[in-house]
Every structure is written in C-alpha cells, then in structure tokens.
C-alpha cells in the first residue's frame, strides 16, 4: 500500500519550524505543498523542470544555518538527475532531497516514468555519494524521515513511494517576482 501524497507532505512538514525552507518541484509537489497552507518560506515552481534540486543546493550553500528541503517528483528529479552528481560533490549538511515517486508523470496524463521500469533513484543518489539515502515505503519510515528533517546533519536523499493518484489541484501564487521577493524577505536577505 503506497502512501498518499498529501498526507505524506503533511507528515513531513508538521511543525516545520522557522528555519525550514522548502522548494517543491514543478507540478504535483507544488500543489501538495500549497495544500498545506501558504508560507513565505516556500519557493513554488511553476516551471524550471529539472531545476528544483539545484535551487535547493544554491540556497543551502547560501543559508548554512537554515535547513532546506527540496520535495519533488520522480519525473522532475529524472530531468535533473545530473544534479545529484553535483550535490554529491558539495554535500551541504543542511540539504534534503525528497522525491515523491509514483512512477508516473501525473501532470501530463499518468504516462509511466522511468522509475516504474526499474530506474532506482536511491541507487543513483547513493552512487553519487550522497550521505544518507532512505527508502520510505510506510508510515513508520515516513515519520522517521520527518524526524530526520528536523535535525539535518548531512545531505539526505529520500524516495517516498506514493500512490499514483491525483488529488484536486491547489494552486499557489504564480507571480515569480513576488515569490522571490517574499521568500527573500522571510529569510531576511532583502534587499
């Protein structure tokens, strides 16, 4: 029984704390994050497919005293798979990459993704030298991941096996300049 994506997002970000910055990927993970309620420390992506993990890297390097969680989908991660190699070299201790893996491209009509045919993103992350790589397939493992997100000490990669369903879209703000400005204000770096 795979996990339900909205409930999984809620578990991961329950009591997220002031210092957790979240970058979701283009598509469903952005809607999942928005469904929890808006937050200035979310940088929603309406584009830039394949870029979520690298935005997380730049942010984590710039804000070493805060935690950064990239929470993206398998299709988005596959497009930026090389960034796992890049992150494997940098390894900031405050960065977590969490992939909601449902084996399909939900936004475009549920076409199968590579992971459904056996491409193993955990094995990729591990081969790239990322310190902690977790396979999250049940509630207990999800709660463990949520706890680890609160006390990040080394770069973490997690695959969360979620069901291929499509809950109602919750659309956040989509003005990119406003998303950027309010995020920077929340982090205290603006102007």
């Amino acid at each position, binding site marked *: 029984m795979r996990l339900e994506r909205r409930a999984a997002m809620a578990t991961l970000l329950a009591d997220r704390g002031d210092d957790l910055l979240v970058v979701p990927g283009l598509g469903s993970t952005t809607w999942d994050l928005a469904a929890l309620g808006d937050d200035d420390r979310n940088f929603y992506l309406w584009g830039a497919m394949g870029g979520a993990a690298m935005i997380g890297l730049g942010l984590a*390097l*710039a804000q070493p005293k805060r935690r950064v969680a990239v929470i993206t989908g398998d299709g988005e991660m596959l497009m930026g798979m090389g960034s796992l190699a890049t992150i494997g070299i940098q390894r900031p201790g405050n960065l977590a990459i969490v992939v909601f893996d449902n084996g399909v491209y939900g936004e475009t009509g549920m076409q199968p993704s590579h992971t459904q045919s056996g491409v193993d993103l955990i094995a990729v992350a591990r081969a790239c030298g990322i310190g902690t790589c977790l396979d999250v397939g049940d509630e207990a493992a999800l709660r463990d991941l949520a706890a680890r997100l609160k006390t990040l000490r080394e770069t973490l990669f997690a695959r969360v096996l979620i069901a291929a369903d499509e809950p109602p879209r919750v659309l956040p703000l989509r003005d990119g300049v406003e998303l950027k400005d309010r995020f920077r204000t929340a982090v205290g770096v603006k102007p």
Partner: protein
Amino acid sequence: MSAPTNWPDRLFATLKRADIRQVGYVPDAGHARLIDRCRADSQIRDVVLTTEEEGVALAAGAWLGGERAALLMQSSGLGNCVNMLSLARTCRFPLLMLITMRGEWEEFNPWQVPMGSIVDPVLKLCEAEVYRVTKPDEVEGAAERAVQHVFGDERIAAVLLSQQLIGKKVWTK
C-alpha cells in the same frame, strides 16, 4: 594596461569586488585559469556542474539565500540553458554569465559553429544584456558593467569572451 594573458585574473578581481560567493561551471579550457582562481579562494564555493542549466538554478537558489553567484561556460553551454533561463526571466533572478566563445574565429572544429553562431541572438531573445569583448583591456570594464546590470537591477547579462582572447586551440601535440 594589462598584459594580454592576464584577463582571467582581471575577471577574478571583478568577481571578488562583486562579492560573488558561488561559482558554477562546466570545465572549460578558456576558463581554466579563472576556475583555478575560484577553486583556490576560500570565500568562493566552486560548484562543478554536469550541465550548464544546473548553474542557472544554482544561481537562483543562491539569490534566494542572499548570495551572489556567477556561471562560467563556453558558448555551447548556452544551448543547454535555454529553458532554465525562464526561471531567471520569470522571477527576475540576477544571472551573471561569463561565456568563452567557440566556433567564430580560427575554429578547427565545425561542430562548434552552429551553437557559437547563435549565441548572441539567443541571449537577446532571452532578454539578456550582452557585452562582447575581443581585446584583453576590454574584459574588466565589460565585466564590471555586467555585474552592475545583473545585481543592480536583478537581470540577466552575459560577457562574451571572444575566441581571439583565448587563442587558437592546439589540436595536435
């Protein structure tokens, strides 16, 4: 007046004055000296990329966290960035690109020509300000103007470093 071969040091000095803290790059012979200088600097995080588009996203993340980044590439790398530049354009992220040109002067490899020949129009279509330099003495001034445009106004700019600066690639040793 700077010596003909020290323009990478002048570029490095510009990056330092601009307080650049993250430098993304795909290894490139034309940028070899600048990459070495960045790698040797304890205040700069050098981030070797698998493809240049990663650097566009890196720079956006850096800015979200209050740091300035620069992206080093050769002309072929611009082609790898095109969709990711939407991130910089839509959100007005500052993006400073230092691009060594191939395929335009004394080029032995014809495979470099198709991308090299469209760098300028592609950048302009992507709303980037373009500063092209062919002489060593022009490098620093162009880079300073690009820095001002990028970080002063949260815009995209590219300094195009002509193949004439870098010299002809030696194919047989």
